[in-house]
């Protein structure tokens, strides 16, 4: 009888074990399932925004017609508009929006500061200065259209290099010094640019201002492909740093306690983020706020785990920029607004709304 009891107990224990094991599997899938849902949702949104962008403009096309136009004719005017004018903008929007947003989320992770964005560190200041320099001294007329992006890229990397060397001591980067240095160097760069602008002709001035305001209008198709390839490759590369980024949420010292080589990770992440922002600014000009707002919104939506945060930030940055571009080119059609204006105003308002909602919610919670 006693044996029976033992047997019974053992069976129940085994049963409990199985149940435990089973519930664990279901729970585990819940977290990952949620991630898959976020991803799927954003991909659908991206496709929708691409179709919207391809069909809306000076000549409106039906959403469904876009496919047939693209698959059918090479001769029709619709085909030329969609493939030569709209598609390049969409591709550049995906590349630049994703790159800026990814750059923002990486920097926020490294600095553990949600207010850092690619431009805080002087990347845009440097790029603008480079471009202003080239325009003022007429160098772009000598070399060709490729000169402006190249100058922007060189300018931003010069600044990054400066910030990086100033804040490195004994082979270690001090994150706080770096942030302050970045802000200061950024000021110096933009003031120098003002100086150039104040002393140059009004014709050059127009060129500089136009470039600074940012646009997805890029005539050189190869440049668009390069940007797109680079930003997608960077997304994959950023996933190599998911572990350090996640550990850094606890702080630099605690990440080290978890076996993470934080010094190396911080340096490489900083370079990756700079590359992304530098390329974006060089090709599309200064498009502000994407790198600040989108990572922030994503954090509110999907949480702080970088495994899901990186890819969702990239995708939503792309979506945001593609839609902003649609607004920029249609709102005062046939004229076009600078896309930076749209991202700043629309993004800022959306952000404020979101913030006030969350603060009301947290107020209610604390009561």
């Amino acid at each position: 009888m006693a044996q029976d009891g033992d047997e019974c107990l053992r069976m129940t224990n085994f049963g409990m074990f199985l149940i435990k094991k089973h519930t664990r599997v279901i729970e585990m899938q819940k977290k990952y399932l949620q991630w898959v849902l976020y991803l799927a949702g954003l991909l659908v949104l991206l496709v929708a925004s691409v179709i919207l962008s391809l069909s809306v403009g000076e000549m409106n096309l039906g959403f469904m017609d876009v496919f047939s136009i693209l698959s059918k004719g090479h001769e029709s005017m619709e085909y030329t508009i969609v493939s030569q004018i709209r598609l390049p903008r969409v591709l550049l929007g995906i590349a630049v929006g994703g790159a800026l947003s990814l750059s923002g989320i990486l920097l926020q992770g490294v600095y553990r500061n949600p207010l850092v964005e690619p431009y805080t560190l002087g990347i845009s200041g440097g790029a603008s200065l480079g471009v202003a320099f080239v325009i003022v001294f007429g160098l772009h007329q000598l070399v060709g259209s490729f000169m402006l992006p190249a100058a922007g890229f060189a300018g931003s990397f010069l600044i990054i290099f400066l910030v990086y060397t100033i804040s490195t001591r004994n082979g270690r980067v001090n994150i706080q010094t770096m942030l302050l240095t970045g802000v200061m160097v950024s000021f110096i760069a933009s003031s120098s640019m003002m100086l150039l602008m104040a002393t140059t002709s009004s014709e050059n001035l127009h060129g500089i201002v136009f470039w600074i305001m940012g646009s997805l209008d890029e005539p050189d198709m190869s440049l668009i492909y390069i940007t797109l390839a680079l930003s997608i490759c960077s997304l994959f590369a950023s996933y190599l740093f998911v572990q350090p980024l996640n550990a850094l949420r606890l702080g630099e010292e605690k990440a080290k306690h978890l076996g993470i080589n934080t010094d190396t990770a911080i340096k490489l992440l900083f370079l990756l983020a700079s590359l992304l922002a530098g390329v974006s600014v060089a090709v599309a000009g200064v498009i502000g706020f994407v790198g600040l707002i989108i990572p922030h919104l994503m954090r509110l939506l999907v949480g702080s785990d970088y495994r899901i945060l990186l890819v969702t930030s990239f995708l939503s940055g792309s979506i945001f920029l593609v839609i902003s571009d649609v607004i920029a080119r249609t709102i005062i059609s046939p004229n076009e607004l600078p896309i930076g204006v749209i991202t700043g105003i629309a993004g800022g308002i959306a952000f404020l709304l979101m913030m006030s909602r969350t603060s009301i919610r947290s107020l209610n919670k604390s009561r």
Partner: protein
Amino acid sequence: MSNILTIQNLNCGYPKFQLSDINFDIPKGSFAGIIGPNGSGKTTLFRAITGILPLKSGQIILSGKNLQSFSLRERAQNIAIVSQFIEAGDMSVEDYVLMGRIPYHSRFNFFETDEDFEIARKYMEMTDTWRFKDQLMSELSGGEQQLAGIARALAQQPQLLLLDEPTSHLDITHQVHILNVLQQLNQEMGLSVLMVIHDLNLASEYCDRLILVNQGKIHTQGIPEEVLTFQNIEDVYKTVVVTQNNPLSGKPAVFLASRKVLKEIQERLSKS
């Protein structure tokens, strides 16, 4: 019995503060405490053991192996650290505890394994934090966060658990609760524990070995009865104390007296 931690002729520190000639052993399965006044070098010693601070000379030996030869990852698999404050913000308690598995993951391991979840659950149940698993870390009280910190450290499956003043900002209920949890882990799992602790009475009650640090040097070390004498304490803390044994545990307990009381006693003594 073999030693989990041996420190030999350790010298290290900052330009303005140096630890010098630190020597001590922690036998396997000990519950040891580092005590000493503010600014005596407790935290510096801790940072040296955790590898944050480079050594000037001397050796730190963990289970017979020089700690310098450990990679960061190996270090994290063998020594787990619970800090005084846990800033984990907006992650769930379970996600936080799962971070203790990072030292066992390769760079390309994006998802936790079933084993990771099992281990996290085991230690969360042991520290009584399983019931909070889906709450955010920021929603927990200080004591609960500290328990989650211990669960995270245990998930690293270390040989040695280091704690930096785990109870200093907690009320007595939580102080005793956390130390009891540590005591239980120490006794049931044989886990070696080394903690920096400010409260001398708690140190006496829970630790089987104490290291009294003063001005960057070890003043005294040994069992609580040897270390917590009124002479040692007055010498190091420059404060008049009375020591007596706790009536329940028999361990030394330290009593303080106000200046007023001391004055009255002095007057009484001079009269008689």
